[in-house]
């Protein structure tokens, strides 16, 4: 597609938000960055322009305006903050893709705070019933956006959602970032994807993977 998409990253000064922003800035999309820390936001903008001097990127003052102008919204805030942001952006994301990257872990990293039969993505879909929520990026560590090849193998990046076209769009976006997209299924699969990351984090700490690790399906 030639027509530029506008992607808003809400929470772009966090580890994940800034890593995703930098990775997306290599493409031709327009980026709108919202983050609560002005200095970090300015540094991020400068970093992006160093990576790609022609990047179309702008810091924007509130999640509402960012979402209104966007075609795709990436919610890169901690799970605990999602409900408040969702409430703020709800009227502006009707029929838009909203990407849930969250892993709703508890403070001790040994379980989830979401109901046993749900996930962060499904909870977000309940808060934003008219948006097309898609799960993506939750199994990718922040450092791996810059280095998506781990031990010589491109890590998988799983995508899940109920709207076929939305999943297709996000899959293309993931691919444009140099990651290997794998469509995992409907939004309910988010439950598994989020638990996969819980396990990966536990193993990363236990085995000292130094936050460079990922999932890969081996197949013929």
């Amino acid at each position, binding site marked *: 597609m030639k027509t530029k998409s506008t992607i808003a990253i809400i929470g772009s000064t966090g580890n994940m938000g800034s890593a995703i922003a930098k990775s997306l800035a290599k493409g031709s999309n327009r980026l709108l960055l919202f983050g609560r820390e002005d200095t970090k936001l300015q540094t991020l903008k400068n970093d992006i322009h160093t990576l790609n001097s022609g990047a179309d990127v702008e810091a924007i003052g509130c999640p509402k*305006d960012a979402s209104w*102008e966007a075609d795709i919204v990436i919610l890169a805030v901690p799970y605990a903050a999602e409900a408040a942001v969702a409430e703020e952006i709800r*009227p502006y994301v*009707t*029929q838009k893709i909203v990407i849930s990257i969250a892993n709703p872990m508890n403070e001790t990293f040994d379980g989830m705070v979401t109901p046993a039969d749900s996930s962060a993505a499904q909870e977000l879909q309940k808060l934003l019933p008219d948006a097309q929520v898609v799960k993506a990026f939750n199994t990718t560590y922040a450092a791996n956006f810059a280095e998506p090849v781990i031990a010589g193998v491109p890590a998988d990046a799983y995508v899940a959602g109920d709207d076929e076209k939305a999943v297709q769009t996000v899959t293309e976006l993931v691919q444009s970032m140099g990651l290997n997209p794998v469509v995992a299924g409907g939004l309910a699969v988010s439950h598994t994807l989020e638990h996969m990351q819980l396990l990966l984090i536990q193993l990363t700490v236990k085995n000292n993977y130094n936050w460079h690790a990922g999932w890969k399906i081996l197949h013929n």
Partner: protein
Amino acid sequence: MFSELEKNLRQHITLTTDEFDRVKRYFVPKKLRRKQFMLEASDVCTRMAFVSKGALFSYSTSEKGSINVVQFAFESWWMADLYSFFTEEPSKLYIEALEDSELLLLKADRLQPLLADVPAMETYLRILYQNAYVALQRRLEETIGLTAEQRYLRFMERDGRLLLRVPQHMIASYLGVTPETLSRIRKQVS
């Protein structure tokens, strides 16, 4: 955000509050800044835009790089490349914001679900397509059958007030004359 659309719908059809609330759920609220594109040529036009605020214009480009303005759309008007929208063939047109704009977009794949959910919208869309056809035919007849001066006078009579918002070279392009010719016509008729 929806007041212009609601007014426009209610001019043509009767909707209950509940029906209008359902209609709203099919529209994408989208801000577009001046000079940004809703559509670029060679993409399929997959969205129709209702202009809540601001203005859009559509145009094709010549090999030499000049633009041929096809249509303008101001508040409460609709804009799309309907040819591309219905045939799913790549568009030859660009649709660009003439001013900072607030749009409500209806995606092609949401059209049938909307009509199934709120059948009164069938009538509204039929009227919309009728108007689009009439406007197209009128434009064709004016282009073929009228002199540049006659075209200008018709245009000013119909949309003159809105055209204060449009740069002269775009009006000239819309009328199919050079900016110099437009300037001469304006002097003659004033």
